[in-house]
């Protein structure tokens, strides 16, 4: 209820600022140092540019710290009062701040992690992270032949992060369901600091020398595992997620057999566009979960992806058709918020 109210009033405030002056809007991200956040910011930025008439700000703490981001978000809602896209890693923390912002009449779009019921935020753009895990598992099984036997080790950089938890769960469930011969170990903590992450995985590899595959759900996992496979000349499969520059090289080199790309740029772009449209056209935001797809990157398409990553323009032109079709029929892509995972 407060949600729709927030939506409604947001349209109101939108009109207030929309007439004449540039719209003041922005995005808050969980950690400005990490590639995924960076991609979403790029997506959001170019969406704002394309929409025009928007004064766009991006904020985020230098390292993953919910309350710190929450403070920045709160400040942002008073500077960018025409609308804010909120990307974060622990939604519960934002329940009250988001609710307060919505109450103030600032339209909020949740990005990447689904908003909590109390937050008053009712529109969410993000992946089905569980599904991303499922896809990674399926890709793994494809390469393990029929009825594989052995162990697969799953790693997760920081426990307690819902996005990563569901990805790991997706992997585990799928492997257990589809390959009874496989024992899934983990998820184990692999830390997000690249060097620590490397050490953690290396120990895993030494502890499970005969494992069939090592699968991570974070960005560092991808390139660190590849490095290890190369160093140790391992015969096991390794893969992770995200499309950091290094990871793409490793996919190209066939070290990572795939990497799952949550297409952060796309997410950022869609969320921002829909926010700006709603505000400009004085209509309330859509309701529910706008699911954006993920992409399996392997040697077949890696070159295109590397090209895509070179610049915002490149990314846009790569995504253009996809964006148009997704925005073509918003309603078709909407699912109930409660399904978000």
């Amino acid at each position: 209820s407060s949600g729709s109210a927030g939506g409604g009033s947001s349209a109101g405030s939108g009109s207030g600022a929309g007439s004449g002056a540039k719209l003041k809007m922005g995005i808050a991200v969980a950690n400005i140092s990490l590639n995924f956040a960076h991609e979403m910011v790029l997506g959001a930025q170019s969406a704002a540019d394309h929409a025009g008439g928007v004064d766009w700000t991006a904020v985020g703490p230098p390292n993953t710290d919910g309350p710190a981001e929450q403070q920045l978000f709160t400040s942002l809602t008073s500077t960018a009062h025409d609308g804010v896209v909120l990307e974060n890693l622990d939604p519960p923390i934002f329940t009250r701040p988001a609710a307060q912002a919505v109450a103030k009449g600032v339209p909020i779009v949740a990005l990447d992690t689904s908003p909590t019921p109390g937050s008053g935020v009712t529109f969410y753009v993000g992946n089905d992270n569980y599904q991303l895990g499922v896809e990674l598992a399926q890709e793994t099984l494809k390469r393990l032949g029929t009825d594989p036997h052995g162990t697969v080790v799953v790693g997760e950089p920081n426990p307690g992060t819902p996005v990563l938890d569901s990805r790991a769960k997706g992997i585990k469930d799928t492997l257990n369901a589809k390959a009874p011969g496989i024992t899934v170990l983990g998820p184990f903590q692999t830390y997000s600091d690249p060097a620590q992450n490397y050490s953690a995985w290396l120990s895993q590899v030494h502890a499970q020398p005969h494992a069939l595959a090592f699968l991570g759900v974070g960005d560092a996992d991808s390139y660190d595992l590849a490095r290890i496979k190369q160093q140790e000349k391992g015969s096991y499969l390794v893969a992770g997620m995200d499309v950091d520059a290094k990871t793409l090289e490793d996919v190209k080199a066939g070290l990572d057999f795939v990497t799952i790309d949550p297409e952060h740029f796309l997410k950022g772009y869609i969320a921002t566009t829909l926010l700006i449209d709603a505000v400009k056209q004085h209509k309330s935001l859509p309701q529910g979960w706008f699911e954006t797809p993920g992409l399996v990157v392997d040697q077949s398409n890696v070159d295109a992806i590397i090209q895509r990553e070179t610049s915002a323009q490149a990314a846009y032109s790569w995504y253009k058709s996809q964006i148009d079709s997704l925005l073509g029929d918003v309603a078709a892509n909407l699912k109930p918020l409660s399904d978000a995972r």
Partner: protein
Amino acid sequence: MTQPVTAEESTADRSHGAGPRGRAWRRRLMRDELGVSLVLVLLVAAAGIAHPAFVHKDNLLSIAQNSSYVGLMAVGMVFALAMREVDLSVGGTYTLCLVVGAVLIRDGTDPWLSLLVTLPLAALLGAFNGLVTTVLEIPSFIVTLGTAMLYRGMALALADGRQISNLPAGNSFFTVLGGTVLSVPTSVWVLLVALIVFTVVLTRTRFGAQVRAIGSNPEAARFSGLPITRTRIKALALTGLMSGVAGALALAFFIAGDPTVGQGYELTAIAACIIGGTSLAGGRGSVPGAVFGSLILSVVAAALVFFQVPINWTTFATGAVILLAVALDSALRRSRGVGLKQGAAAVVSRLFRRSA
């Protein structure tokens, strides 16, 4: 409230006691909290002049609220530092109390009653730090580095790695503690009370004097028969307790128990203390200073948002502004600072005319 502390601080000042009391008193004030508080005012003023919206009441209040959690930890930390100990586990204690509270409430404990568990627990965790430090005769730095992981780990395990949400948000615990009183966030009120109470405790009670005496010269303290072990445990228990209070307030505000929060708060809290004039070498400590220190750090973070610093430059800018702030502070401390004071006054008045 500053008077006593500043006065007490000033005993480090060679010219103490000599010269007419009045002058000495003014000089002491100048030397101590006034320095940081002035820096704080100048920062707010500067941001406010550039972006009047910054000095809007709501914005300032939310900044104050955001600083209150680290602020409370810093208040506790003053006692640890003043007796040459350090507590790196404040973040862990904060998180554990947050999560324990959330679990209790989720499992049906009355939210208010949960305080009867979390706060004593916090004090206990702090006392444990003191106990281990004493028994094993190892520096509290390393002990609390370990217990920090211990406590955070418990939180993670207890929450089973998940955020604990859908708590009864309607309960008065969340609406009152997490809300506002007289349109000022409750956590800010709590911080204010803590500031007053613990300034008195540090400067006007036997315990406070013992803490400072031990920090000033531990060997002499031992020779004078001061209860060193007991005081250490008490002081660290107090530090823990304050983290617990911060945790409870955070729980009330966020209405969720997140085992991943509070990373790196220990350094921020210590920084706040030191900016506020507490010395790592022990013997001296300022509770108001610590609070101002944490406010400064929050103001810097918030201001940068208003200045729309490009995202890749935020970290750089934060560091730069913090350095400038402490540089200004030390300049104020060293110059009798009168000129600067007047300058500041002018700026501020102009500002308020502007924003009014």
